């Protein structure tokens, strides 16, 4: 007997709806209004943000320590010690193992898997809700298959989380002790939330078929919602620790904790990282399940399977693109806040030692855009109505490639004296101006608009609008694109090159607003224009060339590599500090490695991650075979 049928019999419909509303309203409305500050003890007033200074780097002298202690209230002195001033010998060494590399690898692998397992339930919840609203069983099947992939990854995430914790305790015991002094309540909360997340995930997955209909489905959806709430809270806690290390708050210049945990959590970079990671995780999760769909598509033996995995790949690519479009804006906000917190940190990131990694980032982001667009163009082959749009693809490709070239044009080059002389200076006469941010902002916004255009063409290629105002709607959409591109161009060229820096920075916000306006306005017009539209012919799912699936693999690999490299930059911005300007790193590895060395470490980690991912895909195939045999 099914659980859903029991539930359906016992609860009358009115009560069922009120219970559902109660469940959802609690998570929708109650949680956001709870102020985390209410749960944490209030610290003394006037907590100052610690800004970049070398004060904490000075060797400890008895006089200085005495002064620092005298400045603290008696109670605080007893409870919270200052950040320790460590020596090289304070860091335990394990023969044949480099502590930094091991911690780096464990943290990176944990983060990739964590990003994946946090993202998948977000869109699984949405797909399940769509399936419930449309009563289309295909969505339910798709959502179930997505969550099945993430279930195996969940265990591996926990294993790497454990490995990371142990490596931190073994190689950086004093650092962990310092962090525990400040964040211990959140460590415990994290562990409890991990239990809650595991419980939600197992109920969500194993209860899928038991709670398939009626009220059971609502209850199942609620569990999915709870899974997302708990998962997001877990990530926010972890974000608080890493951002505290970058922009410490709630501590004084000696690293003495002021007693207000909320201040330490809610530090300067917490919210920018929270937003950036949520969006990036969704894009990343979409790309990894896209690779899964491609793997299954290529190994499918029947037309039915090919059709199913083609549709799955399309949905995954759609999720990845939908999250990729706003992602550069969240990244821009994050780096702007890094500049606002410490200009030194910002310049180190984009104008200093890591500038060339940003060029690598630009190449990888370009690869992401090109592969996502290529997949959409190949996808047009599913529709017989695509012929009318295929002639435009070459122009879209030209614009995207041109923007891509501008996007990764470097500002400064590493030149020999001979090359410098031949060039006539450090900057190229014509390409030099393309190396600065106004050109890149303009290029990336146009690249986003044309990716959105590819998506719009894909969406409409199999539809014939039936509304009388279709030609006016098309004219309006073209006008929106044209004016937005002109606006982005004027903002980038005039305000970017012929006004001062304040205007240059301010105009980038306007460029973002222009791009978002196009996406929102054109989507709204499309919704109304294609309401009740006729189909040219049924979409031929599965009729995709095999090469299109490699675009999905490229998307997943590029995302993984990109996250590793940019994550390294984010972490390495602290340079020789465990906690920036407060707690100095005195370990033998407290130096910034060369870009080549860092790229090699990240590349090895990427290969390892991909090997694990292939293992997960293989496991899913095994369980699929078992299920098929059982049926």
């Amino acid at each position: 007997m099914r659980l859903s049928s029991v539930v359906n019999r016992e609860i009358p419909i009115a009560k069922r709806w009120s219970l559902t509303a109660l469940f959802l309203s609690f998570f929708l409305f109650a949680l956001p209004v709870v102020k985390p500050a209410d749960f944490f003890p209030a610290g003394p007033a006037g907590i100052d943000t610690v800004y970049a200074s070398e004060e904490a780097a000075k060797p400890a002298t008895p006089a200085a320590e005495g002064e620092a202690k005298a400045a603290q209230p008696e109670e605080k002195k007893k409870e919270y010690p200052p950040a320790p001033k460590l020596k090289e010998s304070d860091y335990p060494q394990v023969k044949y193992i480099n502590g930094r590399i091991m911690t780096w690898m464990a943290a990176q692998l944990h983060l990739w898997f964590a990003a994946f397992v946090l993202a998948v339930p977000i869109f699984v919840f949405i797909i399940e809700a769509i399936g419930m609203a449309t009563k289309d069983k295909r969505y339910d099947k798709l959502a179930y298959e997505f969550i099945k992939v993430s279930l195996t990854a969940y265990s591996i995430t926990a294993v790497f989380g454990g490995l990371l914790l142990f490596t931190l305790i073994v190689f950086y015991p004093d650092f962990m002790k310092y962090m525990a002094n400040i964040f211990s309540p959140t460590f415990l909360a994290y562990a409890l939330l991990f239990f809650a997340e595991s419980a939600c995930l197992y109920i969500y997955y194993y209860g899928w078929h038991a709670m398939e209909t009626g009220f059971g489905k609502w209850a199942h959806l609620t569990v999915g919602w709870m899974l997302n709430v708990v998962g997001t809270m877990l990530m926010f806690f972890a974000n608080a620790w890493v951002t505290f290390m970058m922009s410490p708050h709630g501590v004084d210049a000696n690293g003495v904790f002021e007693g207000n945990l909320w201040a330490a959590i809610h530090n300067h970079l917490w919210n920018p990282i929270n937003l950036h990671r949520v969006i990036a995780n969704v894009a990343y999760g979409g790309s990894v399940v896209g690779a899964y769909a491609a793997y299954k598509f290529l190994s499918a033996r029947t037309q039915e399977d090919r059709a199913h995995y083609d549709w799955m790949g399309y949905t995954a690519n759609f999720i990845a693109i939908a999250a990729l479009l706003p992602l550069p804006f969240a990244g821009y906000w994050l780096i702007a806040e890094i500049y606002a917190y410490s200009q030194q940190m910002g310049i180190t990131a984009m104008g200093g030692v890591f500038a060339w990694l940003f060029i690598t980032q630009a190449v990888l982001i370009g690869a992401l855009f090109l592969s996502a667009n290529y997949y959409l163009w190949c996808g047009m082959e599913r529709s017989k109505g695509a012929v009318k749009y295929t002639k435009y693809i070459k122009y879209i490709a030209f614009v995207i490639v041109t923007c891509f070239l501008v996007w990764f044009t470097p500002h400064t080059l590493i030149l020999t004296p001979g090359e410098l002389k031949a060039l006539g200076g450090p900057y190229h006469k014509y390409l030099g101006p393309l190396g600065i941010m106004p050109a890149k902002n303009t290029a990336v916004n146009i690249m986003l608009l044309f990716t959105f255009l590819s998506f719009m063409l894909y969406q409409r290629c199999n539809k014939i609008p039936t509304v009388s105002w279709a030609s006016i709607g098309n004219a309006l959409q073209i006008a929106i694109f044209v004016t937005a591109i002109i606006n982005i161009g004027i903002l980038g060229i005039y305000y970017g090159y012929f006004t001062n820096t304040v205007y240059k920075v301010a105009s980038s916000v306007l460029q973002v607003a222009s791009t978002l306006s196009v996406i929102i306005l054109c989507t709204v017009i499309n919704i109304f224009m294609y309401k009740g539209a006729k189909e040219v012919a049924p979409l031929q799912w599965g009729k995709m060339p095999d090469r299109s699936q490699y675009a999905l693999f490229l998307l997943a690999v590029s995302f993984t590599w990109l996250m590793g490299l940019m994550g390294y930059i984010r972490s390495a911005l602290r340079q020789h500090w465990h906690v920036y300007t407060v707690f100095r790193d005195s370990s033998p590895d407290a130096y910034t490695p060369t870009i080549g060395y860092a790229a090699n470490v990240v590349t090895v980690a990427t290969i390892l991650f991909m090997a694990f991912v292939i293992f997960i895909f293989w496991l899913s195939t095994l369980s699929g075979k078992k299920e098929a045999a059982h049926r």
Partner: protein
Amino acid sequence: MKSIVSFVVALAAMAVFFLLLDVALFNAQGLSLIFKG
């Protein structure tokens, strides 16, 4: 013909929309649309 007229009208309307958007967003950042070097 109807499409061309619609396009021209839409172009003008969207130009005004983006101009107002620019003015509002510059203003929100304490700047005016006209740069006085």
